[in-house]
Structures are given as structure tokens and as C-alpha cells.
């Protein structure tokens, strides 16, 4: 075994659990959260799963079911989920010297050498997170990240484990790990699972027994690593510092199809504004990027997908420059007569803003622009995102992303704080009930 001990902690039905913290009346109702533009279900409580609501189910297909069964439906509230995630990671840092934030609801903790009774330690993490934030979690423990991830999945699926599964414990590992289907393994997609099945390998136990060199032949170095990690050999260490970003994207579906070039340019300018903010926030500059747009894959309409690359003369994170480049690429990509459902900007090459090669000319303008961007960011930090925007990004934004059933930004906005009743029946005024199923 690797000598290391990792714990993977993740939130159960995380987005739905965040909604429930501030609206306890939802605790016994099925809850789902929809993707951007209220497109499809991206988070479901067990009660909602039991009603047959599948991951990714388009909302228009389940709208009637939700109404009939009293399912509470919410638009994504990323301000809330992001804040709850930050709080959970704050807590993890009290239990482990190093934490890798793997996604908004999953973190790896390095708990090597910390606790003799790891299951009890896992329970203590769960209970602390549950009490402090209200979010239920599961904890998977293992000598490698792959085994910790599998243990976490097992903790979710086996109620008797009470939310903690420890694969550093040989008894628990040998009883529970071998029969898991390979398709449930981290990093094994449909194609890989098929390939393994063709070679007679259907369970994690069989894969673990495979010769790593054969795994390499079959599934490249990724497969070899998987086999080694299943055997407790460390291949993937904790990445406590997030790797430098190599790319960045802002892509969004429209709330209604866009049919005019003016509106498309408005949308692209808005995305360019956002990507400029992101670049400056991370101290990066764009070297190369592309703009794309396409029609809806669901609607019975002619399909179109267009894209066009752009590259500034020198790497930039200036919003105005990005708007100029991206809208020009958008105009070139545009084709009349289609109903566009989505567009986006993808930056494919980034450099640290401090390392940008400076041209000889235009230094004064660049300094002016840089000061303007600093001021723009400061205003938006102080007065809230989108307080000050370039007019090119549009003011009405009829195409803007829809969040019609979003709950309050309970934990991050002074104006959207949850309301606690201080009524005792002797007064008649009652607080407004929280929003229910539309």
C-alpha cells in the first residue's frame, strides 16, 4: 500500500441539499435543481430519483410529473452553492493539512498519519460538516485517490456503512470492492468499459488482477495507472495548488433563439466582458481563442454550427480589446437564416499577464486601458457583478440566461437573506412562504 491515506468527501445531492438548508420545509419533499436556462435536471434528491427523474432529464418532459408529485424545482443558484462549497472546504482544512478541491462538491483530504481509527475520523468530518453547514456528506477513504473515490461511491450505496467507507481496511475492501462494475470506476467511460468487457473484464476485482502492462497496451498509460492505483500504488498525488489554467471558456445557451446579428454581437460582447474579468482575476492574458455559435440540437430546425478563431497582436486581458476581437470573429462566423440557441468564447492559449511581450508602440494607451480595467473590476466588486458593463454587451439582454426559479442567494447577499419568523400567533402578519413548485 502507498503509505498515504486520502479521504474523498462529497456532498450528497449537493445542490439540492444547499436549497434544503435554508428551506427546511423541503427536507421531506423531492427536490431537483435545473441547469442553466432551466434546461434539464442536474441534481436530484433520492426522493426525486425514486420518482424516476433521470440525471439530465429535460425539464419540459418532467414538468407535469413535478407538479403532480409536488417536486420542488429550482434554477441553479451558483452563488449559494459556491459559498456552501467554500464553507465545507474551510472545515476540511481543520481536519487535514492539505486539501484538493476536486469539484464544487468533492474534495480530497490528505489524512496520512492523522487518525488511528479512520472510520471514526470520517464520521467526525461528516458530523462537523453536517452540523456547521447543514450539508450531508459521504466519506471514502483509501491509500490512493482511485480507491478513495471507489470507497466514497460504496459509502453512498451501502446504507449499513453510515456514510463512511474505509478501503485502507483490508476486510472492508475485500468484501466490497471486487464486485463493483468497472463502469463505476473513476475515469472509465462507456467506450473503455466496452473495451474491457470484450477482454473479459467486467468488475473492479478483475481489473485489479490485470497485469499493468496489459492494461497499458489496452488502455494506454491511463489504464496502467488505474490498475496500479487499485492495487494501492500511488500514481496520482494530491494537487493542493490548482494547476495553472491552460484554457478558459464562457459559453451559454440563450433563453430564446437569437436570429439577428446585432443580438448575437451583444451576446458575444457580454461573454467577452465576462471572460476578461476571469482573465484578470487569474492574472492571465489570452493569446488565442475562438467564437462559436450553434442552433438547438433538440428543436426540429436546421442544424448549424459555426466557429471562427481570433488572436490578438499581443496577449491581452483588456475587455474592450476582447470585445473587438470576439465580435469581429462572430460577424465572420455568422450566417443568416438560422435560429441560434447557444454561443460562446473559448480561449485555447493563455499566458501569465506579467509575462506578456510588450510591443514598442502604444505603451501609453495600454497603461490607460489597464487602469480603466482595474477601475471597472473595482466598481463591480464593490457594487456587485454587472454594475458597470460596456454598452456593447447590451442593456436589455432579451437572450440572457434564464433563472426563473432561483432561490435567494441566502448566504452571500444582504438583500436576499433568509427570513426567520418572530411571530407567536398573537400577531396576524406572517412571513412570506418560500417559493414552491411553479
Amino acid at each position: 500500500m502507498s503509505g498515504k491515506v486520502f479521504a474523498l468527501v462529497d456532498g450528497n445531492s449537493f445542490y439540492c441539499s444547499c436549497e434544503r438548508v435554508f428551506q427546511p420545509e423541503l427536507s421531506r419533499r423531492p427536490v431537483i435543481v435545473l441547469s442553466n436556462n432551466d434546461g434539464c435536471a442536474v441534481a436530484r434528491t433520492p426522493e426525486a430519483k425514486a420518482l424516476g427523474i433521470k440525471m439530465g432529464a429535460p425539464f419540459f418532459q418532467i414538468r407535469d410529473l413535478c407538479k403532480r408529485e409536488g417536486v420542488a424545482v429550482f434554477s441553479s443558484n451558483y452563488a449559494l452553492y459556491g459559498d456552501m462549497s467554500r464553507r465545507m472546504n474551510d472545515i476540511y482544512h481543520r481536519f487535514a493539512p492539505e486539501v484538493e478541491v476536486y469539484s464544487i462538491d468533492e474534495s480530497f483530504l490528505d489524512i496520512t498519519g492523522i487518525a488511528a481509527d479512520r472510520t471514526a475520523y470520517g464520521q467526525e468530518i461528516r458530523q462537523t460538516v453536517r452540523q456547521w453547514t447543514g450539508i450531508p456528506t459521504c466519506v471514502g477513504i483509501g491509500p490512493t485517490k482511485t480507491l478513495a473515490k471507489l470507497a466514497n461511491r460504496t459509502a453512498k450505496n451501502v446504507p449499513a456503512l453510515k456514510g463512511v467507507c474505509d478501503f485502507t481496511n483490508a476486510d472492508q475492501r475485500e468484501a466490497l470492492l471486487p464486485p463493483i462494475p468497472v463502469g463505476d470506476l473513476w475515469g472509465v467511460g462507456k467506450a473503455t468499459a466496452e473495451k474491457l468487457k470484450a477482454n473479459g473484464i467486467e468488475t473492479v476485482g478483475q481489473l485489479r488482477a490485470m497485469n499493468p502492462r496489459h492494461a497499458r497496451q489496452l488502455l494506454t498509460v491511463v489504464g496502467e495507472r488505474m490498475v496500479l492505483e487499485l492495487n494501492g500504488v500511488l500514481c496520482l498525488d494530491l494537487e493542493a495548488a490548482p494547476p495553472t489554467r491552460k484554457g478558459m471558456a464562457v459559453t451559454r445557451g440563450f433563453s430564446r433563439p437569437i436570429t439577428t446579428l446585432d443580438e448575437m454581437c451583444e451576446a458575444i460582447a457580454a461573454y467577452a466582458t465576462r471572460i476578461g474579468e476571469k482573465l484578470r482575476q487569474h492574472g492571465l492574458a489570452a493569446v488565442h481563442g475562438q467564437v462559436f455559435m450553434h442552433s438547438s440540437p433538440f428543436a426540429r430546425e436546421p442544424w448549424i454550427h459555426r466557429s471562427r478563431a481570433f488572436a490578438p497582436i499581443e496577449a491581452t486581458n483588456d475587455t474592450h480589446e476582447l470585445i473587438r476581437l470576439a465580435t469581429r470573429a462572430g460577424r465572420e462566423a455568422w450566417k443568416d437564416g438560422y435560429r441560434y440557441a447557444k454561443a460562446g468564447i473559448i480561449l485555447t492559449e493563455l499566458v501569465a499577464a506579467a509575462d506578456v511581450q510588450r510591443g514598442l508602440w502604444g505603451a501609453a494607451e495600454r497603461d490607460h486601458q489597464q487602469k480603466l480595467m482595474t477601475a471597472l473590476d473595482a466598481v463591480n466588486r464593490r457594487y456587485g457583478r454587472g454594475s458597470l458593463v460596456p454598452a456593447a454587451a447590451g442593456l436589455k439582454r432579451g437572450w440572457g440566461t434564464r433563472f426563473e426559479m432561483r432561490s435567494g442567494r441566502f448566504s452571500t447577499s444582504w438583500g436576499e437573506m433568509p427570513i426567520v419568523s418572530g411571530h407567536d400567533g398573537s400577531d396576524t402578519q406572517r412571513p412570506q412562504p418560500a417559493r414552491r413548485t411553479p
Partner: protein
Amino acid sequence: MGARSLRHKPRSGAPAAHSLFEGVLDGKSVPVMFRNMTALPSPSVLHFLGPVSSYSMPLHLMGTRICAGFPSPADDFIDDEIDLTRILVANRPATFLWRVSGNSMIETGIHDGDVVVVDRSMNPRHGEVVVASIRGEVSLKLYQNDGKPRLAFANKDMPAFAVSEEDDVTVWGVVTWTLHKPNKR
């Protein structure tokens, strides 16, 4: 989010005790760790300082201008600033704000429209004001515990609720501060 950890390598000859704590530096938490022991009795033995808010609003108690002439006699006595966030938010990941609607708690100094600071990490004590969740409704209550924990109205004529996970009567968090504006402006 993201990495804000700065590892300190164990000194040779570090104490044979496992200590893990967070220091505070420029609003960032810095976990410090010695890994000389393999087992630990219980993490609750460890004492942690929570990370400090990075969006605090310091108030200057006093301060002296730099003067070209005689140095200020107060210079040696200048205190740190008062950081309100640090006082109001003792445990950041567990602290939430709720706005109050109604005057049932007026005797405890909580008025309609006030904001209460609520700490979920605290266990309530007898007589404390808490945010309670009673069958899905969130309300301010007095926590009473004389053997059997109950959630009571400030109005003594109203019957109290017995705390019970099964009946969906729970404490959401303990009220630690009330923010009240005495003047309308």
C-alpha cells in the same frame, strides 16, 4: 476556495506530539503541521484558529499622522484596528445571517427587521435564543433544557415544542448577535 496552504516542514527534533493548527497571516489561514506521530487520540484535542475573513472592514480606533518634527508619544501605544467581522463571526464556515420578521422576541431585544447572526457550530444552552426549525418552519425560539430539551415562545402562554429529530423539531443554530438599527436612515 483553492489552495491557501503553506506547508511548514517539520523541524528535526520537533516535539513527539502531533499538532495541527492554523495560524493567521494576511487573512489567509496557514496550516502548520508536525508529522512525528502516527496516531492521534481525537481531533477534538487539537485547538484550531479559524481562518479570518478576508473581506473585513477595519475601524481605525486611533492613528497618528507622520510628523516631521518630534515623534508622537502615542506611537508605542497604537493598538490594532477593531475588526467587526472577527467579533461578530467567531466561526466563519458555520455562521449565517437571518432577517427577523415579527416582534415575538422583543423582550430579548430582537425587533422586527433586525438581522441575527447565527452560529450553527454551537450547542445551545438553557435559556438561549435560537433559530429553530419546527416542521419545516423557521422561527426564533428560546431553548430550554431541564432534562428534556424544548423550544419555547417568549410568550409564556404559548406551549413549547419538544426537540425531536423524528417530529422534525430541531435547532438550526444559536443566535450570537443581533444587528439592530435604532434610527431610520
